[in-house]
């Protein structure tokens, strides 16, 4: 009995040593490079949205629709404050990203997460990949208006 027990310990520790040994490091492949500085190029993301016409004052109908989309599809992962839940909090997002980036990300999530550097960096920070929410361009525009209201835009 004692012998078996000891040999079991020996086998286990061997596994651990082998697994954790220095030469067991996985090969590093293409780490995402840091994002290009915001001043040099404006990052509008990847997708069909090339320019967004912002309204002043905010459009109340769009805000209403955006809010109901938020409460059903977004709020399980995103808070309205700057606190990160599963994904980043929304406070200040309209200052951090262009309206085009936000809408492209909402509509074209998978492509953006595979090729847009800022989106990829956020994914690494959050250790979670946002699933596609099947939003239309109109849905995304409504959500954007709701974000602008959340940021106190006029």
């Amino acid at each position, binding site marked *: *009995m*004692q012998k*078996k*027990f000891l040999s*079991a*310990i020996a*086998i*286990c520790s061997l*596994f*651990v040593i082998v*697994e*954790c040994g220095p030469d067991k490091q*996985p*090969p*590093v*492949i*293409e*780490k*995402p490079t840091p994002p290009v500085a915001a001043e040099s190029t404006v990052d509008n993301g990847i997708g069909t949205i090339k320019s967004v016409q912002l309204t002043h004052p905010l459009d109340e109908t769009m805000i209403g629709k955006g809010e*109901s*989309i938020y*409460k*059903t*599809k977004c*709020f*399980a*992962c995103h*808070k309205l*404050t700057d*606190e*990160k*839940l*599963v994904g980043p909090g929304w406070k200040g997002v309209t200052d951090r990203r262009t309206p085009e980036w936000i809408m492209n990300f909402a509509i074209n999530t*998978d492509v953006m*997460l*595979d090729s847009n550097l800022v989106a*990829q960096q956020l*994914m*690494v920070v*959050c*250790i*979670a*990949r946002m*699933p*596609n*929410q*099947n939003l239309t361009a109109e849905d995304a525009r409504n959500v954007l208006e709701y974000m602008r209201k959340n940021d106190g835009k006029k």
Partner: protein
Amino acid sequence: MKKKYFWIGLSLLNLCVVTLLGAVLRSKAIFNLPFIDYNHLLNAHGHFAFGGWVTLVLMVLMVSAFLTESQMNKSIYQFVFICVFASTWGLLVTLPFAGYAALSSYLSTFFIFITYLFSWVFIKDICNVKVSKTVMVLSISALVCLVLSSAGSFTLAYLFAVKSLNAIIYRDALFSYLHLQYNGFFTLAVFALFVHKLENKISEEARKKLHQFSVLLVVSILPSMFLSYHWHNPSVLFQIIAIIGSILLLLSLGWFIAVLRTIKNEYKSISPLLKVAGVISFGAFMLKMFLQSFTIIDYLGNLVFGDRPIIMGFLHLVFLCFVSLFILAYITNAGFLNKEKLITRLSLLVFATGVVLNEVLLWMQGIGAVFIQSSDLFPWLLWGAGICLFAGALLILIAYVQSMPYRKGIIEKNIIIPITEIRHFTSG
């Protein structure tokens, strides 16, 4: 088995911790808790629920139910339980603060190798025991699934290490891991325990049906895994295997219903509270099989995989409703808890209420997302369900401690009653 009461007690303590973390996660959605990293804590919650609660309790129950007295007293099993307990507590302490850092990766790797060791020793032992073919098939397949699922974890660990969250590999690895754990290890181990408990009391015909169901269930596991790959629309071969998987799931569901009808009478004799737990648990299993087979329809699959409340609802349907309620009913029935005591009944009632409430709310929220209908109350109600689950788990732990004199009574009584009865009590 030496110390089996001790290990079940620790598993129940771990269940308490799991539900506490769940309640904290729900709080984070409502309150301002900047010092908590949601995703790190979520990882800790998940790892601990898998390792600290279900894996540990299933290992202890399988060893104490199926093996002979001399086999179950081997120190290798005690060693495995200590390692499982220690590594999952290590993960619990490291994950919320550091995420997947060096130490937590070593600990989870260590945990995986301990599951290999357990599977190897247990499979060798069970081959030398006189259990029915059905129990043998179910328990060995359960452990094979446990071992296979580690391929998914290693792939995920690699992806995290190189910081590449490639959409297709990431989701395939994650879904394969979850599939082999949930539909493989957990489900098959639960049925192994169930069949073992039941088979001596039922007719030859019912036993045969039960065996056919078990074989179908085992056979369905690998093909139905391809339902998880279906979403990225791969080759025709994959599609065909996924369709076969879906049909096999429905077939085993049909067989299960047939089994339930033949063993109806057996079911009548158990106490009402355990009956309710059993109905919820097997109801959840049937719902799981049904829903899983329907993800073959593209439209439903796409709808489901992006809808977080539905994913959460499905995971908790299997984890809480089916597996956890079954285990709690099983250990109560086996005399680990004194079911005559008020606190036992109260604790199981509170926990089951939390389980059902949690499930109903998540599904309402998930289906609401499809129709853009929601309520501001959801986060609060889900928070309440989380608290209810924690309170239930805590009460179960208290009931377990208070049932100690009752368990001692069982052990002493065994000395004077015939040997078959001892097997019944201690292994049951």
